């Protein structure tokens, strides 16, 4: 009962040489056609793409590094410029301060000088005025005295008065008198 199917099973275990032959032929043909038309181009394409992707990644990395370096450079440049600007500002401020100080000192000195000269002038004018007044007083007094003398010089009492008057004037009065005389 079991034997016939086992025999039947042997029919698909029997090897047909013709089929082996055809399979080999087909396989070899398919192999060469596909290697020529499909695998070659596909694999080449894939390799090309892999190469491009690798290149792209590599260059992206490189560019990124470069950009980072540039950024760092820029940052240091900006910091440098800022520092420079601050320094300049400080320097200019200091200069300005110095200049202002100088200017102030100079103007103060000038004002002082002006004040001094004005004071000197005033002093001078004052002494001049005093001298003039004194001279005028002497002249006046001399005139008064002359008039007095001309009218009543003989009067001893008046003479004494005039003497006393002249005595009372300072020695400078004599100078002034002499100058006007």
């Amino acid at each position, binding site marked *: 009962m079991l034997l*016939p199917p086992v025999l039947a099973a042997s029919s698909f275990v029997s090897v047909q040489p013709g089929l*082996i032959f055809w399979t080999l032929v087909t396989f070899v043909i398919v192999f060469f056609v596909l290697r020529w038309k499909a695998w070659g181009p596909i694999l080449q394409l894939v390799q090309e793409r892999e190469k491009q992707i690798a290149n792209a990644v590599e260059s992206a990395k490189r560019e990124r590094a470069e950009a980072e370096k540039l950024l760092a450079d820029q940052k240091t440049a900006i910091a440098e410029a800022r520092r420079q600007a601050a320094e300049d500002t400080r320097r200019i401020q200091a200069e300005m301060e110095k200049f202002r100080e100088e200017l102030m000192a100079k103007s103060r000195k000038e004002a002082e000088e002006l004040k001094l000269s004005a004071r000197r002038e005033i002093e001078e004018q004052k002494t001049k005025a005093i001298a003039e007044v004194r001279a005028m007083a002497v002249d006046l007094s001399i005139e008064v005295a002359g008039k007095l003398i001309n009218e009543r010089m003989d009067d001893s009492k008046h003479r004494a008065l005039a003497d006393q008057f002249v005595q009372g004037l300072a020695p400078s009065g004599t100078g002034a008198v002499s100058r006007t005389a």
Partner: protein
Amino acid sequence: MRKAMVLIASLFAAVAWASPEHGEAAAGEHGAAAGEHGAAAAGEHGEDVPGYILHHVTDSREMELEVPLGKPIHLGTLPTLLIPFHDGACTPKMTDHGEVMPGLMEGCLDLSLTKHTVFMFASAALLLITMLVWSNRDKTKLVPRGTGANLIEMLVLFVRDELAIKNIGKEEGPRYVPYLLTAFFFILFMNLLGLVPWMSTATGNIAVTLALALCTFIVTQAASIRAAGIGGYLKHLTGGVAPWLWPIMIPVEILGLFTKPFALTMRLFANMLAGHVVLFFLLGLIFILGHPGVAAVSVPFAFAIYLLELFVAFVQAYVFTMLSALFIGMGVAMGHHAHDDHGHEGHHEGGASHDHGRAHH
């Protein structure tokens, strides 16, 4: 291998069930003859499930269109092509099993086309068309566009990176990629074609898988000769032991050479055949048990098995290619380690392939 056991178990079960019911050994007899004249068996005995299954999975000279629950439509007999090595070598001989063509040993090469040959050609043609139409081969477009191009490229890259380069190595791997790709896609297309209704699986025929394994065998030997040189190759066959041990080692090594393609042959063949037999047997259960209610169980099961077969079609193509790559990698590694050929082969190869694996991680 588990599937092969399922196949045998189901065959026996089917026979045990079917034979008493019909009570005639003729059913089995027809099953036996299914190879050549099975059409009649399936037609006459509508419920001869084992016969029908065997008829479906075995090779035949007839092309026919199976009709569900009816007689198959005969599409014609395929042409016969016999090449005799000497005069009169190809005359059919009468035996007690009917007319039998003389085999290769008697000097007759039977190159006749058969059902499996035709479907093998068909899948090769489909493969060529698919590759030439849908793959992205335009150098100006580096980016794959469309499902076909992406799918093909995914599989191509998988074979290249996961199979060739991982098993053979980065330097030698790319050389064998075209072979592995062809084997992978050829097997895949034959497997998948068998899952289309009215088609049959060429990989379910031992001759086809044997031819494929033969290709791998030749490529493997060529790779190891190329890597080790003819001297190193022959030296490896001695197993690297003392000369007085050679009479033992050489047959063992030669046997070892042939077990690899034999394993490849049987694995692919048994997996594809068993899948189809299980699928048909589940559906045949309806007729064996003679009750439509069985369909409620067996149809979902058959559907699940069909999905499993779709998966197995890929897995077997992958396994065949992976083992081919592994064998080629062993051959290549053997050449690289030919200088220190002491120690025993298994250790030798294991270590070499391990080194290769580590080098590419």
